[in-house]
């Protein structure tokens, strides 16, 4: 008996080895695809880092070392004030105007101080104008109202006036220091070599400027936040509402199936086409609404934050609807049944049972869709996002620019330093995305935990 069985057993063993080898092969292939994804991610990160950090050659109008025997950033407000009086006494009125003026420039010198400036004015000067103050008085206005950091900026911009004349990327800076120094010596003998991070608090908090070394991201960052806020307010209720209707109320008719199929197809339409739609509908046709004329805003352009938010909202609406539908469908039927069995109406069941249970899933889909909206550039170019504005957006009816649009613009500029700026902006954009996504995930996990107990 055992003799007859043994060849059969060997065949089984052989097959088993084969079967397990096949399993191992597949698991390796799956691992390889993950490794590939990881590699791509690392390359992406390295490219961005490469642009955002590195040596720059800075040329000063006045060498900061000649201004004081200590480094400028360690000086106190009063010492910085002395430097200012000694080197740029003539510019103090301009500095005051740039920082504190609240009247148009042409009447600035003729307006009494309390009306002209938005800072505290001693009673003795109430009737004076700016031109009637002496150097000491001018300086006191500056030192009383600016922090040490702001004073340092004033000194830097008005006296030192650093100018980036060349920049090198991170990895080149790291490994070719000698070559960079040689180039410096031959081409920019007066310049100083500084290792610089292009992402700085100043970069985030300053408005756009025409010089790569001075420009900030605040205008675009605020634009992005405004546009996304409008987009959320518009697309979340509408998308979830549509999903509730399709899943809970719509019967299985031809028209409803047609609607569903169309939504699925709309999710795949290229974003630039949504830009054209936004241009026709929001910018042109609904101009009285999107320009804010209907609430009395003096403007005749529909190329506003409102148009941008609504266009991006339309763009992500199909994705939100599809994801919300999946989440609602995943709520077990037994929960609905239990609710109906207790005498709940359809709306009570949907609102109190189905939606809370589906919310984690709905939020997950919504986060993904929103991440896409934050990074969109093409439709915003079509509806006319400004390429350069230096004032912050003030509301839904302002002209706007957004971070990805700025990145696009900066990479187009021939001036090579702007590539560093673009890389820095990418880091800011990615961090913004990361923060928003983590916030949403924490929110979602809280919901799920509450449900699962």
């Amino acid at each position, binding site marked *: 008996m055992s003799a007859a069985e043994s060849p059969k057993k060997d065949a089984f063993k052989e097959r088993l080895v084969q079967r397990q080898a096949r399993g191992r092969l597949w698991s390796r292939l799956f691992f390889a695809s993950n490794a590939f994804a990881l590699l791509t991610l690392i390359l992406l990160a390295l490219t961005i880092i490469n642009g955002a950090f590195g040596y720059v050659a800075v040329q000063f109008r006045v060498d900061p070392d000649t201004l004081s025997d200590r480094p400028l950033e360690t000086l106190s407000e009063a010492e910085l004030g002395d430097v200012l009086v000694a080197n740029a006494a003539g510019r103090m009125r301009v500095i005051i105007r740039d920082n504190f003026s609240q009247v148009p420039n042409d009447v600035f010198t003729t307006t009494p101080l309390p009306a002209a400036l938005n800072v505290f004015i001693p009673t003795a000067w109430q009737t004076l104008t700016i031109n009637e103050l002496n150097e000491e008085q001018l300086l006191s206005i500056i030192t009383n109202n600016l922090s040490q950091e702001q004073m340092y900026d004033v000194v830097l911009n008005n006296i030192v006036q650093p100018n980036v004349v060349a920049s090198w990327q991170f990895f080149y800076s790291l490994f070719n220091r000698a070559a960079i120094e040689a180039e410096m010596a031959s081409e920019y003998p007066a310049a100083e070599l500084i290792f610089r991070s292009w992402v700085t608090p100043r970069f985030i908090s300053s408005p756009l400027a025409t010089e790569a070394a001075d420009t900030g991201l605040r205008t675009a960052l605020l634009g992005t936040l405004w546009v996304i806020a409008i987009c959320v307010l518009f697309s979340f209720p509408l998308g979830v509402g549509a999903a509730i209707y399709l899943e809970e109320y719509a019967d299985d008719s031809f028209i409803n199936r047609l609607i569903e199929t169309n939504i699925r197809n709309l999710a795949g339409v290229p974003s630039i086409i949504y830009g054209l739609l936004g241009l026709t509908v929001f910018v042109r046709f609904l101009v009285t609404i999107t320009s804010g004329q209907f609430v009395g805003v003096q403007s005749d352009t529909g190329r506003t934050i409102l148009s941008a938010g609504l266009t991006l909202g339309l763009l992500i609406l199909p994705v939100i609807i599809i994801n919300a539908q999946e989440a609602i469908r995943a709520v077990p039927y037994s929960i609905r049944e239990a*609710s109906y069995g207790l005498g709940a109406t359809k709306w009570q069941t949907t609102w109190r049972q189905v939606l809370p249970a589906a919310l984690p899933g709905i939020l997950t889909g919504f986060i993904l869709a929103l991440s896409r909206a934050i990074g969109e550039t093409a439709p915003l170019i079509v509806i006319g996002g400004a390429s350069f504005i230096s004032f912050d957006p003030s509301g839904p009816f302002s002209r706007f620019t957004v971070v990805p649009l700025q990145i696009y613009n900066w990479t187009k500029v021939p001036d090579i330093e702007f590539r560093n700026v673009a890389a820095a902006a990418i880091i800011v954009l990615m961090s913004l995305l990361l923060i928003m996504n983590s916030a949403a995930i924490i929110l979602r996990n809280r919901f799920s935990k509450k449900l699962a107990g």
Partner: protein
Amino acid sequence: MAITGETTIHLNNVSVYYSNKLAVKDVTLPIRKQKITAFIGPSGCGKSTVLRCLNRMNDLVQGARVDGEIIYRDQNLYARNVDPVEVRRRIGMVFQKPNPFPKSIYDNVAYGPRLLGVTRKNQLDEIVERSLRGAALWDEVAGDLKKSGLALSGGQQQRLCIARSIAVEPDVILMDEPCSALDPIATQRIEQLMREELKDYTIVIVTHNMQQAQRASDYTAFYSIRKEAESGGVERRWGVLVEFAETEKLFNSPESGETADYIAGRFG
């Protein structure tokens, strides 16, 4: 049928169709007040279908249609002016698989009263305690009402579902195989509950377990299947009520031979 006692619900020639296909034919049956009526029969005989007509849960199935009359308090439940929401508030239901809401124990029980507009905290507290005591669950969960209903054991979950349904003080409780997903000890607990805490309710229970019907019910209705060959070799099947009697009588001296065969385990 020499059955005495007050009737809560009366079914008159009830037939149910799903998408115009006959599922149950001509059921006529009284449901006695404050008694337990069991529905037994082989799979596919329509006992659950009839049960779900009693609180209009069949309305939720697309294409379902009910002929005949179901009289509850002198009112046909399927009359045009009757709102199914109102029916389900008076005729509650416990399902086959325990299905607590993904919420706390407290919120599970308070859900029904809240639907009806009870918002005062102390009133809700009172209802929750009374209902949980009524379902013999209070002593086990009293200290931890904030715990999720899903964290309870299967038997506790089913008792939570019972507590949830009695929180709106229905007249009738329908139970659709409430013990089929439970172990014998949890099953015994539910049967005891039906006999003791729930003795003032009219209960209709569908069960696969004949011992359970025998142990727990006062009346038993036995359903079976009728078949008819249709053209093209397709078989048409529908359920019928074969016999309805006091439980003791139905199990000890059934009138129909089919009943006798079924309870003897010869088919089904």
